[in-house]
């Protein structure tokens, strides 16, 4: 199964997909600048370059469908509809942050949106997503779960065990491998014993599809079919999206381990957003309108975040246990 090019996707969906992808790109570019400027605390992993994956998949999901994310989670959050203002505040550790400033970039979650959290532990989202998918199966309303993972992280035992469990328990769970070729500085073939994720999936009794993750339409179509299959009770599936990481593993990574010209080439020749703009059929005016909106939104989010007060010191102790 390979899908490329335009499809019969509705104008609304196209526009909303573009808005989300562009929001991610703008959000991440801005963070990149603000990190360099030294105004963002902690460390962060930017999703720029991979937008078509998160959005291509999450376009099929409702708030009742749940996703589990990774250390590189901003894109999944925005794709799943988490509030951008509250995300930016969170990344700045401020009041009004989606987690009250206590989680930060690596722990953004919004249970009301079916977003079970970014995760600082590689692979840890997969078992959680199994549980979400079990709940879905038991509820019997056709909801599904999706867990994202990178080409490095999906080799963690937690993910591999989850593939087995999902298959044995016939859970409506999609394993997404965002294959951007690197785990930190280590290339995919040095972390992963197979080149074909279809083989990996078959080793756990699951079907798999590989798509060009830079092609929104390919991702969207493949995800749509796989998710429909899950909603109908077909059990777990795997979707590999071949994609590219624009920035370093985290901010500060010079990426000198990448072949000469690789990063430049990515920006210039492998930009999923530009591809979308060129093939979506949306008019330049429509795209520009979105661009302006998004720019404003992200600008506003930073301004708000920097203005927002820090958490009150007594919040240090809140939220460890459920109290009655």
């Amino acid at each position, binding site marked *: 199964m390979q899908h490329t090019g335009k499809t019969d996707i509705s104008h609304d969906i196209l526009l909303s997909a573009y808005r989300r992808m562009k929001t991610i790109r703008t959000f991440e570019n801005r963070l990149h600048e603000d990190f360099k400027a030294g105004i963002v605390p902690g460390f962060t992993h930017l999703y720029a370059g991979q937008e078509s994956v998160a959005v291509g998949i999450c376009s099929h999901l409702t708030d009742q469908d*749940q996703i*589990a994310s990774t250390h590189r989670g901003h894109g999944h959050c925005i794709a799943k509809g988490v509030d951008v203002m509250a995300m930016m505040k969170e990344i700045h550790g401020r009041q009004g*942050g*989606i*987690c*009250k*400033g*206590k*989680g930060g970039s690596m*722990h953004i*979650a919004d*249970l009301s949106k079916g977003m*079970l*959290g970014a*995760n*600082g*532990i590689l692979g*840890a989202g*997969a*078992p*959680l*997503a*199994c*549980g*979400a*998918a*079990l*709940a*879905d199966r*038991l509820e019997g309303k056709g909801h599904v779960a999706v867990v994202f993972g990178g080409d490095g992280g999906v080799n963690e*035992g*937690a993910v591999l*065990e*989850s593939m*087995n*469990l999902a298959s*044995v*328990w016939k859970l409506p769970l999609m394993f997404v491998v965002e294959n951007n070729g690197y785990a930190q500085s280590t290339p995919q073939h040095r972390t992963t014993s197979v080149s074909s994720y279809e083989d990996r999936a078959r080793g756990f009794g699951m079907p798999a599809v590989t798509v060009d993750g830079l092609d929104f339409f390919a991702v969207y179509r493949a995800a749509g079919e796989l998710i429909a299959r899950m909603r109908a009770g077909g059990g777990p599936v795997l979707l590999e999206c071949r994609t590219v990481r624009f920035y370093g593993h985290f901010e500060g990574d010079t990426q000198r381990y990448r072949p000469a010209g690789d990063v430049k080439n990515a920006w210039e020749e492998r930009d999923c957003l530009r591809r979308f703009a060129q093939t979506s059929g949306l008019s330049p005016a429509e795209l520009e309108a979105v661009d302006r909106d998004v720019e404003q939104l992200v600008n506003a989010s930073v301004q708000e975040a920097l203005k927002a007060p820090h958490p009150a010191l007594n919040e240090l102790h*809140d*939220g*460890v*246990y*459920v109290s009655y």
Partner: protein
Amino acid sequence: MTRHVSLKSAINEALDQEMARDPKLLIFGQDTAGGVDAGGETDTWGGVLGVTRGLYTRYGDRVIDAPPTEMAYVGAAVGAALSGFPVVAEVPFIDFMGVCFDQLLNQAAKMRYMFGGTAEIPLVVRTMVGAGINGAAQHSQMLTAMFTHIPGLKVVCPSTPHDAKGLMIEAIRDRGPVIFCEPKYLYETTGPVAEAPYAIPFGQAHLAREGHDVSIVTYGPMVPRALEAATQLAETGIEADVIDLRTLSPLDIATVLKSVQKTGRLVAADEAHPRCNMATDIVAQVTRQCFTSLKAAPQMVSAPHTPVPFSPVLEKAYIPGAEQIMAAVTRIMA
């Protein structure tokens, strides 16, 4: 009329009654249903020592056999709990927690805090603790201190059938993750247990015996040993308070302090390895909080700093018993 049941059956009864009460409650673990789909009789196991036996027959597919892949199914329990299905998950021996520790340490324990106080994770992880059945180094550990160290986890360890039932019901109704440590050595001990469901609130230690000379503070499998020591000490004229902590986190330090203020002498006992364990925790907290009440140096009774040996004679020497507690009391009374 008091009914006597075993600690093991008391837990089974608690699970049974809660499964009946809450139609969303799930149980899973290795062979917790046991024998399902194997071609012969079903419900033949109920976990490795049979604690959940009978529940599959009553609750069907809400009692689920998981593959022996603890990361996946313990994590799935966290995820299901987060998604509105409370779960009692069994990790047969606490020794096995090493293979799924992250899901408790970094996921279940921290989510509520990391997510700004929004998450509820009604999860109980049942697991067996302690030595005494010649299980050797990998089937005999306590490891309670490790979980007590972690904010976000509640840690329970009952010593009587009555407490086991009431604490299990409380654990299931709690909206956060609970590590429920079952002293396997006490599974067959019997005691009075009320038939109707009841919950014992966390953070309430139990004064298992009253005295005035010394406070023996302990929990789980050490409680009967402490009581035995106290009985023997009474014959020599020494009367001990024996405090059963019941929950290690939250900790009812108030009851402990009250007792030590009365007796002026503390013996803290833990079957665990001696470094950074519950005995050191109790001694440190008590010393800081009622130093001036202390008449003598607090004593600790723990296992030696070795893995648990297989040899029955060595294991017997390993496990701190009534004798060691009596020796500690003797030292403190000297």
